[in-house]
């Protein structure tokens, strides 16, 4: 990156950032700051056009070059175009597609997590040290608090599980959260003085 580029990047980072910080702590220019805060999502919505270009180029190239998996790339491009066009011209069909294809696919893809829970538990939690044992015990007790079955077995389970979750675990969380907040401050300062520019690619 050239020197001018570097300065421009840092300035265009710092000016809006400092403006918001100033407004937050002084209570001045509140409504201007509120409008500024709404920008990022709008900008992200603009950036989706970059995605369209990359997406169609990537898949169409594979279809035209007839690479090994090309029929699947064709499925991707075709379903993209069909969904988008339906949204513009046939709202009721589009609604059907959203609730019966998009949502169903979303939930079934997400449900992998329920299965992988178990395999992760099975593979990763061998008691090698006392600390892992503690992790296990705390996990089991909290599970017995969460699931209705725990209370049915013994009314003590919810109390113990809730205590673990609230007191030792809740306290540790405070510590971790404070540490993370410090990391955020550190990264902000490093960005302000121009050390951290990964968000523009280095």
């Amino acid at each position, binding site marked *: 990156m050239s020197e001018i580029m570097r300065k421009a990047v840092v300035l265009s980072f710092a000016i809006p950032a400092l403006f918001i910080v100033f407004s937050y702590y002084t209570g001045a220019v509140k409504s201007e700051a509120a409008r500024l*805060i*709404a920008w990022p999502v709008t900008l992200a919505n603009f950036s989706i056009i970059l995605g369209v270009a990359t997406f169609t180029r990537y898949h169409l190239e594979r279809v035209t070059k007839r690479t090994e998996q090309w029929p699947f790339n064709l499925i991707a491009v075709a379903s993209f175009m069909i969904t988008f066009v339906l949204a513009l011209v046939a709202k009721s069909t589009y609604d059907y597609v959203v609730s019966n294809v998009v949502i169903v696919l979303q939930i079934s893809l997400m449900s992998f997590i329920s299965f992988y829970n178990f395999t992760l538990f099975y593979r990763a939690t061998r008691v090698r040290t006392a600390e892992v044992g503690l992790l*296990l015990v705390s996990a089991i007790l909290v599970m017995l608090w969460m699931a209705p079955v725990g209370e049915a077995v013994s009314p003590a389970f919810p109390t113990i599980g809730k205590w673990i979750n609230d007191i030792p675990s809740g306290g540790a969380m*405070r510590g971790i959260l404070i540490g993370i907040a410090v990391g955020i401050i550190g990264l902000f300062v490093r960005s302000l003085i121009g050390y951290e520019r990964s968000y523009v690619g280095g």
Partner: protein
Amino acid sequence: MSPKLSPLNQDRLIFIVYILLIALPSLLVVGLPLPVTSLAKSFHSTIEGVRDRGVVLWVTDQTFGTWVELGSGEIAIYKHLFSLAQRRGIRLVFATTYNADGAVLSASIVQDHIIPGGFAKGLKYGENWVQLGWLPGWEASLRGLVTDIHKVARADYFGTPIEKIPMMKDITSVKDIDLLGHSGYYIDEYGRQWGGLGKPWVVSISATTVAMAKPWFEKGIVTTYLNGQRGCAEYEALTGYRGLATSAMDAQSLGHLLAIAILIVPNALYLARKGLRRSNSTR
């Protein structure tokens, strides 16, 4: 699990056992008991406690992903809120800040459950309730909702400018709101913007987040919360608007038991084998 099985087949066995376990309650009724916790009770009574003609701001920040867990509880909450609007003139402001899914889901609850169920009888859109739709910006919008609603929502879900909605004339910021509420997966963003406003704030939140919600929940930053699908089931029992959450509870219990078994059994076997080896060697 037999050590003869390859790791891949061990995984497959776990998957099959799990699928069979959660399918079991759909095929025959198991009927494990469901005690109602004080959390759900206070959630119910906090909503009941809103003053007559009071204003409730409810942010539906669900995604299609959280919908499986919290959806049926959300429907019960909407029904409860609308019934309060009918009985006591409470006014409802619905919004979404996280992503577009929430606005779609919120609109579909009103379309598919509230209006056909007769919960909106005698109520008028724009006077008793308003749907602001998706206000992109998440945390920024959350801040906007309690500082200046008219700035953050220039129009409602249906494109009507906010100045033309009668009930929004005297609802501009948090001082006009009596109860804050949100449902979804996250809490930190809400706590940062809503914590310390001094208004009651209720949350219907994924059980996953509950461990995280604790710091916000202590000392009354969050007034009370529904603990995931289980909380929803309890709330459904309290309101009488039963749905999917209630029927999922048996499967949840069986799934949790399987998880506990998977945590304990291999470790117990391992320790027993180790103990056996040790006693053999000492002999």
